[in-house]
């Protein structure tokens, strides 16, 4: 019996942006496999040229409405590095709060809105209202917590406004921060329940060892700065990013693909972060990991969901610590314009984000370079699918299609950022 199969998903649902999936299998061999992004390119690197360095973060925020915060922070840090600005501890702390807020809301969106319906047998979270109102309410409470945290520090949840070069235009009020501390404490149980809930789901067993890359720092759980490290021994400063990671274009996708020089595709995101920084997670996050049987290093991309949930617990714990130490005082934000080139790497919720700018004497951008997490994960997603598809040959077409989509959702791709679509349609002939 000869077997030819085609898996096509024309417009992948429950991911951000416009992407598709096409897989052709013949006699058990994959003849063609494409995770394609048809979302049109937006050419940010082209139109940033000629813009002023003080507005770069405001503009790059508009690359992505799910992770505007890390785009802002990365742009700000790259510009500050170019201008030789050293930011205050308070600014570091407030930015970390803001990025944690971004991780919480984005992780909760992925976990409950995008991923959970697959595991519970629904087409969407909306369809779960009658049977699972309790779960939905928990999701909404946690999502609101993340958004409220961004709004408190950044002035607005989507595309914040008060983070600027060398600080914040407005420092949050002490009273409001106190209230936020209480909200974080109150939300902790919801976050722990989230870890337990997702651990109770039937997460597919699928191990494929790929190189995991994340930021790492000795003193903290790194999300806004640190060394770039990997499970294969990479250890580099952020300004060496381009020397170690090369991008190439593929003719079927508007997203470029990244590979580590001399090695190949790699994974960025919550699983990489937790694998590489497990010791820096909060006490309670580590304890919960143990209780639910999560072991590191873990090379099952579907387990990214558990890593994501653990990160929410860690974020809450770390935010409380930050709130307890941040002085919340007015600071001098003045700085001088000079020419220079700056680089910065941060952790967006879905992984490593790289920005670099060359700035002229007049403060105007001469060159811009941006690499997003989804562009870095794109090749690894394809490589995972290449191994996953033969392993699920006994599933029905419908089940196999869903499984492929679930893998993609586990990466939480952000297609607007990557500027790629999934339609899985398998035909079988004999």
């Amino acid at each position: 019996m000869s077997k030819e199969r085609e898996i096509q998903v024309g417009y992948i649902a429950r991911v951000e942006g416009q992407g598709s999936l096409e897989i052709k299998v013949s006699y058990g061999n994959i003849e063609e496999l494409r995770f394609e992004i048809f979302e049109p390119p937006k050419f940010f690197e082209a139109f940033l040229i000629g813009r002023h360095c003080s507005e770069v973060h405001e503009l790059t925020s508009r690359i992505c409405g799910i992770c505007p915060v890390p785009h802002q922070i990365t742009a700000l840090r790259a510009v500050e590095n170019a201008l030789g600005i050293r930011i205050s501890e308070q600014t570091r702390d407030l930015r970390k709060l803001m990025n944690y807020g971004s991780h919480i809301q984005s992780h909760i969106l992925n976990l409950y809105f995008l991923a959970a319906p697959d595991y519970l047998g629904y087409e969407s979270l909306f369809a779960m209202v009658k049977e699972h109102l309790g779960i939905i309410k928990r999701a909404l409470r946690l999502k609101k917590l993340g958004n409220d945290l961004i709004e408190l520090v950044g002035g607005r949840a989507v595309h914040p406004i008060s983070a600027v070069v060398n600080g914040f235009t407005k420092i949050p009020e002490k009273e409001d921060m106190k209230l936020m501390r209480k909200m974080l404490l109150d939300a902790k149980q919801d976050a722990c329940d989230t870890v337990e809930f997702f651990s109770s789901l039937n997460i597919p067993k699928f191990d494929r060892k790929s190189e995991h890359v994340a930021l790492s720092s000795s003193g903290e759980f790194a999300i806004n700065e640190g060394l770039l490290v990997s499970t294969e021994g990479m250890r580099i400063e952020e300004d060496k990013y381009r020397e170690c990671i090369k991008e190439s274009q593929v003719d079927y996708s508007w997203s470029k693909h990244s590979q580590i020089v001399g090695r190949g595709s790699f994974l960025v995101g919550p699983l990489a972060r937790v694998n590489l920084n497990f010791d820096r997670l909060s006490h309670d996050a580590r304890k919960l990991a143990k209780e639910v049987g999560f072991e590191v290093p873990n090379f099952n991309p579907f387990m990214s969901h558990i890593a994501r949930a653990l990160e929410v617990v860690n974020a809450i714990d770390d935010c409380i610590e930050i709130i307890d130490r941040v002085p919340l005082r007015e600071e001098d934000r003045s700085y001088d314009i000079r020419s220079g080139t700056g680089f910065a790497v941060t952790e967006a919720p879905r992984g490593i984000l790289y920005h670099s700018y060359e700035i002229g004497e007049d403060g105007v951008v001469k060159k811009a370079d941006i690499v997003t997490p989804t562009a870095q994960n794109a090749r690894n997603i394809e490589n995972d699918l290449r191994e996953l598809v033969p392993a699920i040959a006994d599933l029905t077409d419908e089940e196999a299609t869903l499984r492929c989509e679930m893998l993609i959702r586990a990466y939480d791709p952000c297609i607007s950022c990557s500027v790629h679509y999934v339609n899985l349609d398998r035909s079988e002939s004999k």
Partner: protein
Amino acid sequence: MSMADRLKIAVFKMTGCAGCQMEFLRLEEELPFVLEVAEIRYFVMAKRENLEGPYDVSFVEGSVSTPRELEELRDLRERSRIVVAFGDCACHGCVPSILNWVRPDVAAKTVYEDYQAIHSKKESYQEICPLEKFVPVDVHLRGCPPHKNMILEVLRSTALGAKPFLRRHPVCVECKLRENVCILTFEKRACMGPVTAAGCRAICPTANRECEGCYGPMSDANASSLAQQFLKIGLTRDDVTRKFRKYAGITQAFAGEAGEQ
């Protein structure tokens, strides 16, 4: 409202950042109530089973930049009673419209080694166009992103059969209501408030920051007068051009100051 009477709504995405959809999903405490009055029939970012319509209200995020998007837009227009230009990109191009001032070959070369290799298989216009260039739009929901209360206003008014109440007076009105001291008059800072549509509750001046104009032009905006004012307080002509060529440079109201394309 019975299940059968619920508004049939759809959320589409063209070329944009998903921030407006995120603002929609920021209806967190409100979501259970929204689902009582509205049935979400199409929303690819949040649903796997998406229904064809017809729809009562279609929220369309993003601008049109590919033939595929144009076809989708024309098709959804046919199937929708009310089309909402959902956010700045859909209303007037937003930040991505800055691209319209960059020569297409220069833009392509800056980002892709071999642009033609992809472009030959996947077409893109390399020009950002608001929805109204191609189809009639019933409601303009301005803002980057439009505040979620404005989304609720559209749903509420449509459910009641009324026209949504959306402001186009300047940000200055909201700024006064928040009792801020004018940063343009008293601190000589280049605030876009006097020409920008309200709806944000003047969050930027309230956070000690100049309004950057992210809700686009108010009705009857006097852009050239504000541009003169900016020059007087020390901005260069390039600075002024950048101010107006940001969220709504392609609108008639700002085109004079945003420079020729």
